[in-house]
């Protein structure tokens, strides 16, 4: 098992830059998520780690060894493909044994090893079946089996749950995470589903437009988004953005929103112009008394909670409230914000302003 270090890796396809200089470190044994919308470069990054693409520049260290220009066969990395990439003309057993036979392992050892892995994954009974007729879950297990049978240094997974239907996905995600917990192998996992990333990941890298936007633990990224993109991408419903014109001084603890003073974490950085007041729906409180008011546009019942959509002087806003709270469409309600959880953004750059809250996360100027 191994640590993986990505250093200033860049990848171009002709004129198109898929990944701009990116750096991050994946610790030994971590379940590491590469998260971002489609086309953001996350899969390319993964493929570069695996050796399916060679980086245009930069270095990749696997277990201390620089491997960025080596072919995949010399990297000792396993890869689980989105479409599983099972060999369709072979049965389950042949699929599982393929990497072992390719390595030249003795026949008897191969058999023992494959049976071991099949037992771990609970697929002993389908070893003789052709992969064509398997259910999505079984295919997924076979694909995983083919990856773990080799005891590689690290696993790469490219949206391995993307091809499963929604109902089965949740179940498989748990299974996968449990497997990781048992094996403790370094895993790099690509997904575009923020919930999946939050649920499964030890660490997350959020990418957008070929750039790494933020790198951290799930809660950190949720609470302290470094950019508006991250704030928007993570969380459902996503963070409310209330744009306003104004200024905020270094050290300030309030901002002026449409004439109402709102508490914010102590700012470490001053700014003025087009700013954005970012607040998560669960940090919006509804009260009859609040001076900052909004009109209820819609309510969406979610069981324990409900999402209330309001029209405020700074635009639409969603609040998460307990399911029992009564809100009638058309009613005007006072709003309060949990000040210590608010993040301010510079609308032009999209970056969060440094504050007490995100100290140490947002470092740039």
């Amino acid at each position, binding site marked *: 098992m191994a640590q993986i270090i990505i250093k200033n890796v860049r990848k171009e396809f002709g004129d198109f830059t898929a990944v701009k200089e990116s750096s991050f470190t994946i610790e030994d044994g971590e379940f590491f998520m590469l998260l971002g919308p489609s086309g953001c470069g996350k899969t390319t990054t993964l493929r570069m780690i695996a050796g399916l693409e060679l980086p245009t520049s930069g270095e990749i260290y696997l277990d201390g060894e620089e491997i960025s220009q080596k072919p995949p066969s010399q990297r000792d990395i396993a890869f689980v493909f989105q479409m599983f990439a099972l060999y369709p003309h072979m049965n389950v057993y042949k699929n599982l044994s393929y990497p072992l036979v390719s390595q030249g392992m003795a026949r008897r050892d191969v058999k023992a090893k494959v049976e071991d892995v099949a037992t771990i994954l609970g697929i002993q009974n389908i070893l003789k079946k052709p992969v064509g007729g398997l259910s999505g879950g079984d295919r997924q297990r076979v694909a995983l089996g083919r990856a773990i049978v080799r005891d590689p240094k690290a696993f790469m997974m490219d949206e391995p749950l993307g091809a499963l239907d929604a109902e089965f996905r949740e179940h498989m995600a748990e299974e996968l995470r449990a497997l990781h917990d048992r094996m403790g192998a370094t895993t790099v996992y690509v997904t575009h589903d923020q919930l999946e990333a939050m649920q499964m990941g030890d660490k997350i890298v959020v990418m957008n437009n070929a750039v790494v936007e933020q790198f951290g633990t799930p809660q950190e990224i949720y609470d302290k988004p470094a950019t508006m993109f991250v704030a928007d991408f993570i969380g459902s419903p996503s963070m409310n953005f209330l744009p306003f014109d104004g200024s905020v001084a270094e050290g300030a603890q309030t901002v002026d929103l449409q004439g109402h003073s709102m508490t914010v974490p102590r700012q470490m950085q001053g700014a003025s112009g087009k700013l954005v007041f970012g607040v998560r729906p669960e940090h919006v409180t509804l009260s009859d008394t609040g001076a900052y008011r909004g009109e209820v546009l819609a309510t969406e*019942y979610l069981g324990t909670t409900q999402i209330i959509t309001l029209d405020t002087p700074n635009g639409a806003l969603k609040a998460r409230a307990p399911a029992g709270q009564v809100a009638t469409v058309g009613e005007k309600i006072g709003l309060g914000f949990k000040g210590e959880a608010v993040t301010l953004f510079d609308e032009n750059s999209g970056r969060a302003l440094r504050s007490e809250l995100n100290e140490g996360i947002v470092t740039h100027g």
Partner: protein
Amino acid sequence: MAEVILKGVSKSFGDTVGVADIDMTIPDGAFVVLLGPTGAGKTTTLRLISGLEKLDAGEIHIGGRNVANETPAQRDVAMVFQQYSLYPHLTVRENLEFPLKSPILNTPKDEIIRKVNEVANVLQISHKLDNKATALSGGEMQRVSIGRALVREPQVYLMDEPLSSLDAKLRTDLRIELKRIQASLGATILYVTHDQIEAMTMATHVGVLNEGRLVQYGTPRDIYENPNSVYVASRLGQPRINILPADLFGTAPKGAHRIGLRPEHVTQGEGRAAQVERVEHLGDHSRLHLHLDGHDIVTLADPHADYAPGSALQIAPKDPLCFDAQGDRIY
């Protein structure tokens, strides 16, 4: 708009049961969502009402009329399909005009123009009217196909997972829009989905289907809070309800075989000590995966609460739902 009544509706395809003996009334102006996993018979119900499939048994009444022998055209329903409902060889305008020009409606020309423009305005696609249908984005396409249903004034709208092919953000927006349109037109809508969020947020009534049978029919709140079986209880709620042996926390409630505990119904700090397996930080809350006597239990916690995996946590049930051996709700 009209009321739709299903009486003992059944349909099978060879050996597989499509739907079996469904009785349901869709009141005039209601937004009814049929919920169930793949293969539960949701789409079949829709297709039976539209006339695309023929009934094996039972009756369907639309606006008081028994429609058994009518063709889809004669039933005067509008349907929005999951995908592929726009004709790729026509422009947006032609797509919208298509139902109006049918021999059954045979709308006069100026009337067509008026209606199409009206609907295009409502759906904010006026500027795309002369585009080829294939030149639209996914969201626009789905809006146009909803629009094609809206240009008509049918007895009932049937919608088959119209939002499922869209991405999460767009889905959220269209959900609200659809709800608003329904309210303003007072339309009767029968809507099929497997997405519980859609069911809960939009419906006036939810029907839960299981293997072709309608197992519960009521308001979303009713279904969430008072499910009549383990099956229904596990359809709604995320994370899913914990179904546990009735005696896990001491004596079983009378007659109960299993109890259902929604994650928010697990009280922390009292009761039996469970082991914390894993903590998922989801931002607005954390999910605790607990382990108690070989049973997995999921509960919610404050996002910043610090639980180390392997530590112990005392938990107790609060207002559990009780089910008998068959999985039916007792109380």
